[in-house]
């Protein structure tokens, strides 16, 4: 359940600064395009800037870059929305964590803030901390009513699991929008889109990447996690899994393909970003949502949606255009589960 006191703090603006993620831009551009399309539909403007670089979180938490370098880099990036007078929306758990932690740190340590600004001044910038850093799943729940009005293609009958990832909910156990262990904000959004949220035992298990394990230890530590997670997903018979972080998306999407390629497992669970799923329910063309960049194909998921729609409309026609049918479960569910 979203925490009312946190919900109350989240500003609903006409325009936000979109903090782009380099994983999304370079590997899953559909995350970015669907975000823009969805926000356009609900009448909220997003501004971007080519002056925004990577948040530098990855290289900091892998100890390559020192905090002395990336703290000013965070302040530099945040000086852009500061100057524009906009609040910031991040698409990534990592960007959110990094910008927020360092932002809080600077705000609470005026002496260091002064030194960082001393450095920024030399490149003509200043960090004030006025721009509030928000996560995509802070903002979307606040706009839930507007989203509901745009749903023209409800994802009825599709069973969808969630993966919240670690860095947003765990890292901000007191300030995040929902409880770190039993969150439901994304499930609520799934219901708005007409889909059926599905719980599974390993829902809060890390995707296995951590920040570094895939690179540092290769697969020996991360693949077993993924395997446990996907076994649990398979048992829950889901049609897709929805994430709120591009890094989780990368790891889950590529990890299962890797396991399939090596004959270790036979998973085929498409991984979608939350705005890709909402975009689909808003009737946006799947090609435009960038699902083609996924390594694990989303085609079966899209086919099932179409099949369910078709069977509903023929059933409606047979009953003389009756608008609703209470029971949506069809043989399609079994088919997809067996596939």
């Amino acid at each position: 359940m979203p925490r009312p006191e946190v919900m109350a703090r989240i500003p609903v603006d006409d325009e936000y600064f979109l903090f782009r993620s380099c994983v999304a831009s370079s590997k899953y551009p559909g995350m970015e395009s669907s975000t823009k399309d969805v926000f356009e539909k609900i009448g909220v403007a997003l501004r971007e800037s080519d002056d925004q670089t990577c948040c530098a979180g990855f290289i900091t938490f892998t100890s390559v870059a020192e905090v002395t370098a990336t703290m000013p880099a965070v302040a530099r990036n945040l000086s852009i929305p500061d100057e524009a007078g906009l609040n910031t929306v991040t698409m990534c758990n990592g960007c959110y964590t990094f910008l927020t932690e360092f932002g809080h740190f600077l705000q609470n340590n005026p002496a260091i803030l002064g030194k960082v600004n001393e450095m920024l001044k030399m490149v003509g910038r200043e960090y004030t901390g006025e721009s509030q850093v928000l996560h995509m799943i802070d903002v979307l729940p606040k706009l839930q009513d507007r989203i509901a009005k745009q749903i023209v293609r409800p994802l009825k009958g599709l069973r969808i699991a969630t993966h919240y990832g670690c860095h947003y909910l765990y890292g901000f156990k007191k300030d995040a929008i929902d409880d770190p262990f039993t969150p439901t904000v994304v499930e609520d959004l799934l219901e708005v889109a007409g889909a059926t949220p599905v719980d599974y035992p390993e829902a809060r298990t890390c995707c296995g990447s951590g920040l570094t394990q895939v690179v540092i230890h290769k697969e020996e530590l991360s693949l077993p996690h993924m395997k446990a997670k996907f076994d649990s997903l398979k048992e829950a018979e889901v049609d897709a899994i929805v994430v709120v972080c591009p890094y989780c998306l990368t790891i889950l999407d590529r990890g299962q393909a890797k396991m399939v390629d090596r004959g270790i497992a036979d998973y085929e669970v498409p991984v979608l970003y939350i705005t890709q799923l909402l975009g689909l329910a808003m009737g946006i063309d799947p090609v435009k949502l960038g699902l083609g960049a996924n390594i694990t194909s989303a085609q079966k998921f899209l086919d099932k949606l179409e099949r369910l729609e078709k069977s509903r409309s023929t059933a409606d026609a047979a009953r003389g255009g009756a608008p609703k049918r209470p029971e949506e479960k069809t043989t399609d569910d079994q088919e997809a589960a067996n596939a």
Partner: protein
Amino acid sequence: MSKVQTKRLRRELYPKLRELTFGFVSDLEKCMQCGKCVGICPAAAVTTYNSRRMIHDIKSGNLQEVIESEELWSCFFCSACYASCPQDINFPFTVAMLRYASLYAGYGAEYVKKIIPYAQDYYARGLTVLQPEKNPLVLARRKANSGTSGDMGDIREQIGMPRERKVSDEALAEVQFISDVSGMTKLMERMLKTDDAAPKTRQRIEKVETVKTREGKFAGFPEEQENA
């Protein structure tokens, strides 16, 4: 900015900025050794990694042992321990800071080296993850799923975006300036030069070969070629 100027700034600013790091070491003395953190830890699920034991070691003065150990490099940074800790100890931050300590003591280069290409991309292009893709599995699947060549430029174009995300030249110059005067560029150069004979971290944990799944035991993966 001239080379001399940059050098002077590095001398002046860097010592001041070093203070930054010390804000992130959490109050380990509050730890009551309850072990909740270990119960939820993904690293502890696949190895004998143990955050509670590490905290105990640090508190009882065995910091050196932790700094030299490979254990320090097994944390996933997932923060699940922090989320479950009754004392609100942010252990991953402690790990991050201890890793710097380890690097300064001459350990850990074997892990960090693998990340340097990402840092070089950040320095040269302003982005840590770039578009080019080497993994043939990814390219083949992307080609099939998108109906394009599989190249990211083509996929971006297909969905109505510019072929490449660019960071402005001004932004690049600023980021490079920050990196140069804050010591990051130097650190990268130094790490690249560390030869493979540098002291290796000591093994203190073992891999656990079985992970419980709901169906029973999972007995690890066959040895595999790298294609990450």
